[in-house]
């Protein structure tokens, strides 16, 4: 078997240009590997079309660095004529009639969509276990969770089943699995990437972002998907940067904040040790690191439960079995049609979240919970603004820990929210943030670090990220059977 997918994009681009390999070689390798694996990283494969596309590309001029590169798409991003399920029984037979804006952009660059990756149902979960199609396994240890909700997107890149992938992040769903799987995952600024065609979970928090093997490729993929979109009025008109432009620049005199919230007692010791190694490294190279307090961060979880679940309860109301999706065979009138279709097709986590969300928006609760949450969210955003008046970055661990055993949190609805303790504040404030691998636990599981920057400063995140990546030079390929 070939091992092209382990190489980086620049090398592959060179081989393609030289004619040493064809896009079809990459596609064939991807499917060969995927079919051999039992990670559960994919829900639907796009084999026939990917092969067809790869053959078509043989007659086309290689016009960009991502030409012919295989990419996996999280299954809550709609793809025309390619089944899109959001990992829910509800959409088991749903074949979209249009492409998400990000998918259009990827197709314009002649990248090849390999398939749709597994995820937590409707992106609700942080372990990859709530999928209707079964759990995704962590490529570093098949008994561990890969993190979620973009479980398959992170696992497939980590295992080199594809070169790049797209995930979505509402409360940490790109960064958390990236940290558990040893990949680089970026959640862009809210409004930087179009949400048109992203199956909504929480509209005011959702963002699409790249998951890649390294920082440079992450920036390349953001270059493709970023930009305003007149199909999404929440996108920003702000001009798109070349996100690779600051990669390789030094980090001298950069001011970096390390919030105490991110280094508290609830954070795993090994994780903290690894983060402190990095702060030391950065200081040695001229960066200025200061420990600070950021008010309101401690409200992250209740804010999430109110705002994200409130919005979700409304966003998921459209799944009624009438126009598309699952329709119960067992109904006698419109009420039983709704009740039975939704009861039978939504998983427990989704139901739980719809119920909580409906509760916080009901009657007086809207005032007691939802409106108050919006105020606290605003206060949290302001406290970030204050931090960024003084600092270029905030860093800390991506997660409270590294990958844990499959099944650990299955029956603990509340505990799984606490996985997102450190990632949620970023979504609440709409900030860009990346998780990069900075080392391994004693049990050889990847540990991720969070780099948070001011709004629309993604290029600076890549600058700091690539610096750390270069210095560490970690082997991030989980290799063969473990």
């Amino acid at each position, binding site marked *: 078997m070939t091992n092209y997918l382990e190489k980086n994009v620049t090398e592959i681009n060179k081989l393609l240009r030289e004619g040493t390999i064809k896009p079809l070689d990459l596609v064939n390798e991807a499917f060969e590997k995927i079919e051999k694996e039992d990670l559960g990283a994919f829900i639907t494969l796009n084999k026939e079309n990917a092969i067809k596309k790869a053959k078509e590309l043989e007659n086309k001029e290689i016009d960009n660095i991502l030409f012919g590169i295989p990419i996996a798409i999280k299954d809550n991003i709609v793809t025309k004529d390619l089944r899109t399920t959001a990992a829910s029984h509800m959409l088991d037979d749903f074949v*979209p*009639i249009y492409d998400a804006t990000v998918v259009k952009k990827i197709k314009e660059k002649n990248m090849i969509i390999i398939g749709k990756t597994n995820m937590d149902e409707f992106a609700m979960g942080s372990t990859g276990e709530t999928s209707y199609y079964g759990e995704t396994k962590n490529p570093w240890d098949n008994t561990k969770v890969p993190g979620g909700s973009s479980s398959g997107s992170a696992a497939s890149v980590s295992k080199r089943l594809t070169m790049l992938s797209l995930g979505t992040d509402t409360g940490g769903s790109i960064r958390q699995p990236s940290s558990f799987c040893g990949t680089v995952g970026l959640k862009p600024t809210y409004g930087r990437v179009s949400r*048109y065609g992203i199956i909504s979970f929480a509209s005011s928090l959702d963002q699409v972002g790249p998951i890649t093997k390294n920082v440079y490729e992450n920036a390349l993929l953001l270059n493709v998907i970023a930009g305003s979109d007149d199909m999404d*009025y929440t996108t920003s008109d702000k001009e798109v940067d070349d996100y690779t432009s600051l990669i390789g620049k030094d980090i001298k005199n950069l001011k970096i904040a390390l919030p105490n919230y991110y280094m508290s007692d609830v954070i795993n010791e090994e994780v903290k040790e690894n983060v402190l190694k990095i702060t030391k490294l950065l200081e040695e190279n001229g960066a200025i690191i200061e420990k600070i307090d950021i008010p309101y961060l401690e409200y992250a979880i209740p804010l999430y439960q109110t705002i994200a679940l409130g919005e979700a309860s409304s966003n998921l109301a459209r799944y009624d079995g009438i*126009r598309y999706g699952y329709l119960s065979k067992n109904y006698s009138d419109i009420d039983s049609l709704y009740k039975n279709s939704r009861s039978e097709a939504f998983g427990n986590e989704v139901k739980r979240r719809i119920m909580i969300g409906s509760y916080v928006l009901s009657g007086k609760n809207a005032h007691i919970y939802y409106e108050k949450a919006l105020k606290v969210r605003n206060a949290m955003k302001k406290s970030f603004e204050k931090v960024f008046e003084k600092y270029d970055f905030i860093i800390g661990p991506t997660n409270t820990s590294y990958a844990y055993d499959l099944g650990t949190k299955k029956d603990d609805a509340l505990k799984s929210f606490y996985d997102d303790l450190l990632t949620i504040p970023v979504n609440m404030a709409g900030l860009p943030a990346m998780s990069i691998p900075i080392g391994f636990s004693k049990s050889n599981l990847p540990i991720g670090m969070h780099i948070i920057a001011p709004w629309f400063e993604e290029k600076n995140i890549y600058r700091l990220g690539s610096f750390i990546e270069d210095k560490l030079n970690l082997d991030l390929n989980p290799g063969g059977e473990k």
Partner: protein
Amino acid sequence: MLVPTIGIEVHAELKSKTKAFSNSKNAYDNYPNVNVNEIDLGYPGTLPRINKEVVNMALKAALALNCKINKKMHFDRKNYFYPDLPKGYQITQADTPIGYDGYLEIEVNGNKKKIGIERIHIEEDTCKSIHTMDGTLLNFNRAGVPLIEIVTKPCITSPIEATSYLESLREMLLYLDVSDVKMEEGSMRCEANVSLHEEGTDKLGTKIEIKNIGSISNVAASINYEINRQKDLIENNIEIKEETRRFDDKTSSTILMRVKETGNDYRYFPEPDLPYIYLTDEQIETTRKKLPVLPQELKEKYKNAGMSDVTIKSLINNKTLCMFLENVYDKINPVNGANILTGDVLSYLNKNDVSLNETHLTISKFVELLISLEKNIISSKQAKELIKDLMENDETVNNLINKKGMIQITDESQIKEMINKVLDQNEESIKDYKEGKDRAIKFLMGQIMKESKGKVNPSLASSLLISELNKR
């Protein structure tokens, strides 16, 4: 004494080119489910878009209703399950209606009254359910069609006021060119809230909502029925429960649909998929300045010009004729113009079932006709005759007058010659005239018209006849 308090809610479809939150066509016609895209169907992943034309139309209506404007406004989601609601929520404006606290002036029996407008907001329509023997069919052509909802304050006190308000509102929206406002087609829909309370007390009675009222006259009928029904209940000490009723036009009564449950919970919250909309002072003032002349002002103007109530009503009801008149208003005698338009022109249009712009009548031809009439070149009878030709052919008024030999004889010496010729032949009539018999004049005029083949200007001829008679 029990007195009624009435509030009215009107939904009017805006006639923007595209739907409220997507770019599919906003049209009522064609086959079912053709003016539909993935946004209207509420497909997973779709997001609403903002339609500036819709915002602008709603702004026009809000300004015409003398409303205050929410310069920073957003949309909200109203959540409920129903098969005609594709997303499971309706995008509407709960917190920040585009306009609030306005009024519309109406006239009842010669008295003017301001009907307070509580709010006007933008929202999207649902799809249309068609119930058949085999089940319910859904037509999504209407899904996402923009609506404005206009809510009055509870300040209407009689069915006749309600009727007058609705007629005035309908005319206003029509003249603003924002809606077709056809109740029979559903582009304007009404709901009335009716309650009774003891006169002199502040506390309003329990409110009954009446839905599905198909015409303005039925609004009055349903309110009337409801007032009497509630009176009976109160006088018999039967408690009135808050309920929704519908009007049944076969029996001219209201029928219970449902008793209101304690506070319908629509779980309103701000629509996170759309940003705030900011209306600038400049935009508001520009729109205000561009507002067309509204029916209320037109009626006043026409009344002062001396038009009859019947003519005014007919003009206002026929907007294209009214706008046509407005275009020529300063160039002609407007009363004559209005009479011809609401008389011969309108009956021609009705008879042939065409609209004015489908005929050959142009503004310049109409002005030419009216000026010919005012200059006595043609008689009003001749003008009537010409109108039909002008509507059917491309010929100018002048050509037609020449062709038909319609030019009137206005040369006095020529007329005098004719008069004397007639007088010479009718000595008896001269005698009759001298003896004070008025009918002699009529007879002689007839003879003069005959002599001139009807071309002599009648009023000129009549005055010349008398002076010639007196000379004899």
